[in-house]
């Protein structure tokens, strides 16, 4: 039955992922005469220039992951142990940066953290300095910080999901035996949350490994080149598809390895979550009186602020109009322009449309694949699962290129049609659906499926009447992610769009390219609004990210 379920998704993926991907990557695996050869890859791995790039990529990813985990642990603790009003709101807000197109992230970051950014200007006026005190950007520091800020909510979500379910009794028992503080954490709590921690770390590692815009802009130059940036240069700009594909292949292999690790860890973590029940949690508000409560609150505010600040800056900047003599006035000018029709409104409508279609496609695709993966028992099933999540490890630039290359010979027009964009978005988004769905499927206690089975539910009906309804919250989460990812997708869209099919991120990109930063911020704010709404709905519907 599992096999039958796989047919349609496999066909789709073959046509719209593996085929275009192959047409590009084949360049990295063939020599000049077109025969299969590992020559390019081996010469790549022997070239100190590329080795340095790969080394730096891995190194910054490791550091970023460590930083994310360190930053995320306190947050996970808070979320696990306490309830507070606005928790859902904050969770929704802090997930938005994850799906935003890189250009907006970077815009906001520069505007807030830059040498002339809001933070520095504030500090300068506060402390009466003439030079900006915080020189964060254009360095490795910036890359690590940006990575940590945008990925630590992932750590918080994944770890708190498990931590929440750990019964305080183990800690209480340890306390009665004399353990407390760090020792308690190290010996009792940490081993229990370890599966979730490691799985979050694996995921964050992959994201940092493949990070692109942050490195490109905030790094400050060729010294801080990572795999993705180099692939971008090779593939998009110099059209050196041979080296570009070879490099992309190396990146894909590394991410596959970590995807595999992630899946295995997620399996363990979900199993641990399965075993335990939800526990009542005290309200944070009640803690405000104590010093601890204040510290917690400060942490929350600080984190929320730092993540949200760049976004808020972008939104704030959009309410302006550069009028005469370079003065800025508060104005809704751009929003009026957007709403009054024309290409801006079309971009908004298009983005919405594509996002909805992507959601409709990637949800069943991801769910079915997640189900097959979670229920498959054969050895090597985890490897197959990792392969199914492959698009996470493939640059969307390569995907876009693949679409261009693979389909140009076909008689019917695929590139330039709206479904090309939808398919590309779907391919990019469905692994995230798999991620949440498979975690949830794994958490379903086996006694439930056995009970249903004994009551006469065969494999299909098990799926339909039991497992699917139980995974409902995860599916909503997955849908919201798919929506958000589609709305914010830029790289593939840039390759596949035309005037009719323009999307918000592309429009933002164009506005920036013609000095229209306010306009870019305005469109970016609209995008953020959509993403935020989508994520708010998840948390409302009780979704979780696992």
């Amino acid at each position, binding site marked *: 039955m599992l096999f039958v379920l796989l047919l349609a998704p496999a066909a789709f993926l073959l046509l719209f992922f593996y085929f275009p991907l192959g047409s590009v990557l084949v360049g990295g695996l063939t020599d000049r005469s077109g025969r299969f050869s590992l020559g390019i890859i081996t010469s790549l791995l022997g070239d100190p*220039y590329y080795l340095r790039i790969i080394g730096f990529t891995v190194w910054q990813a490791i550091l970023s992951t460590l930083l994310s985990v360190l930053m995320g642990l306190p947050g996970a603790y808070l979320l696990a142990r306490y309830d507070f009003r606005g928790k859902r709101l904050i969770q929704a807000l802090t997930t938005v940066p994850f799906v935003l197109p890189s250009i907006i992230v*970077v815009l906001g970051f*520069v*505007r807030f953290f*830059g*040498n*002339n*950014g809001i933070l520095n200007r504030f500090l300068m006026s506060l402390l009466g300095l003439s030079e900006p005190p915080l020189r964060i*950007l*254009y360095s490795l520091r910036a890359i690590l910080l940006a990575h940590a800020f945008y990925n630590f909510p992932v750590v918080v979500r994944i770890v708190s999901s498990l931590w929440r379910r750990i019964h305080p009794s183990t800690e209480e028992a340890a306390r009665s035996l004399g353990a407390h503080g760090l020792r308690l954490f190290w010996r009792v709590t940490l081993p229990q949350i370890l599966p979730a921690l490691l799985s979050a770390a694996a995921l964050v590692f992959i994201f940092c490994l493949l990070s692109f815009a942050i490195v*490109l*802009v905030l790094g*400050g*130059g*060729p*010294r801080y*080149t990572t795999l993705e*940036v180099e692939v*971008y*240069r090779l593939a*998009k*700009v*110099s*059209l050196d598809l041979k080296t570009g594909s070879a490099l992309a292949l190396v990146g894909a292999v590394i991410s596959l390895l970590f995807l595999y690790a992630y899946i295995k860890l997620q399996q363990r973590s979900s199993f641990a979550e399965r075993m335990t029940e939800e526990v009542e949690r005290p309200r944070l508000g009640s803690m405000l009186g104590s010093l601890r409560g204040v510290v917690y609150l400060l942490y929350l505010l600080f984190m929320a602020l730092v993540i949200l600040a760049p976004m808020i800056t972008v939104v704030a900047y959009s309410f302006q109009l*550069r009028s*005469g*003599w*370079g003065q800025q006035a508060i104005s809704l000018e751009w929003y009026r322009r957007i709403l009054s029709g*024309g*290409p801006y409104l*079309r971009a908004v*409508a*298009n983005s*919405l*449309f594509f996002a*909805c*279609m992507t959601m*409709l496609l990637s949800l069943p695709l991801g769910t079915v694949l997640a189900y097959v993966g979670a229920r498959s028992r054969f050895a090597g099933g985890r490897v197959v699962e990792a392969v199914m999540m492959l698009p996470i490890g493939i640059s969307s630039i390569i995907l876009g290129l693949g679409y*261009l*290359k693979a389909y*140009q*010979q076909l008689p019917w027009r695929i590139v330039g049609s709206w479904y090309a964009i939808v398919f590309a978005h779907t391919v990019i988004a469905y692994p995230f659906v798999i991620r949440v769905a498979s975690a949830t499927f794994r958490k379903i206690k086996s006694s439930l499926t056995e009970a249903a089975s004994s009551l006469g539910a065969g494999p299909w009906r098990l799926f339909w009447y039991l497992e699917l*309804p139980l995974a409902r919250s995860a599916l*909503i989460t997955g849908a919201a992610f798919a929506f958000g990812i589609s709305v914010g997708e830029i790289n593939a869209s*840039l390759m596949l769009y*035309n*005037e*009719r099919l323009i999307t918000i991120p592309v429009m933002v*990109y*164009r*506005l*920036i*390219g*013609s*000095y*229209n*930063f306010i306009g870019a911020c305005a469109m970016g704010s609209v995008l953020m609004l959509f993403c935020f709404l989508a994520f708010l709905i998840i948390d*409302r*519907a*009780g979704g979780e990210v696992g």
Partner: protein
Amino acid sequence: MYKTRSNQLSRLLAAAVALAALFAAATVAATPVAETEAQLVIYAYDSFVAEWGPAPRIIPKFKDKYGVEVQVVSVGDAGQVLNRAILEKDNPKADIILGIDNNMLSRALEEDVLQSYRSSNLDAIPEQLIFDSTHAVTPFDYGYFAFVYDSEILENPPKSLEELTDPRFRKRIIVQDPRTSSPGLGFLLWTIAVYGEQYLEYWKRLQPNLLTITDGWDTAYGMFTSGEAPMVLSYTTSPAYHVEYEQTERYRALLFKEGNYLQIEGMGILKGAPHPEMARKFIDFILTEEFQSEIPLTNWMYPVNPDVATPDSFRFAPKPEGSLQLPAEEIRKNRDRWINAWVKQVSR
């Protein structure tokens, strides 16, 4: 069967989604679609096609003149235009590619994607602007790379390339990566034109003054206007934009003692173009006053046609005395070597 509250919510959500989808689809469908077969297809870079760029003003003129459907496709930046053409080499879907500049010419010719056509209108164009003797590429506008600075922050700007390396400009300059940006490449070639093979030493001296090296002009300029650094590599025409639309003269372009580097943009007809006749007519058209007069205020470059006047704001777009240019053949031979050496130097 199970009517939980969150189930009702998800129904609402589904309904909302369906509604949004319908609305969006309707909007998409309602906007006029040029699905009818275009009789001329042009690949151009983004800012050319944008609604504030040249295309919306120029294309209708051509349409009216010849009564044809023209489709202008924006493909990214100029480099990507060429790349797209190369990608579609065997089965070209476009007739004209737009944005090949004098620095990219060698590559375009190497890849052999263009066919030659010498328009008779070229007679009116100054000799030194015709940068392709094979006429595969026909020039339509030009500009000079220059450092643009913020006069409100910088009181004593540099007057030469060499002065750029002065320690007082430490971390105050933004430039672009030559691999991904045409001004970036232009600047690199500029330094080579001035310093020859010693350009690497120059860059060594320059490096401490660089705040960052961005991948594209838009990022760099955005940082500049955000105040991250008071100097950015751009064009001599950039200040004119601010004068024209923001009524401010604070941004000024710098002319250097050694001269500024010249960029000439052109377009060419693709080999195997589906509509070669119409394409040739378009090439003729771009050299006419109708086309050229729109260039300054939409593309922010100088028109190649000397009979076309530039607007008043272009007072702030100074033309340098010495205009530098490296010969296409030399670029073709050494480009990769120069860039690789530069990358090595700058990555340290």
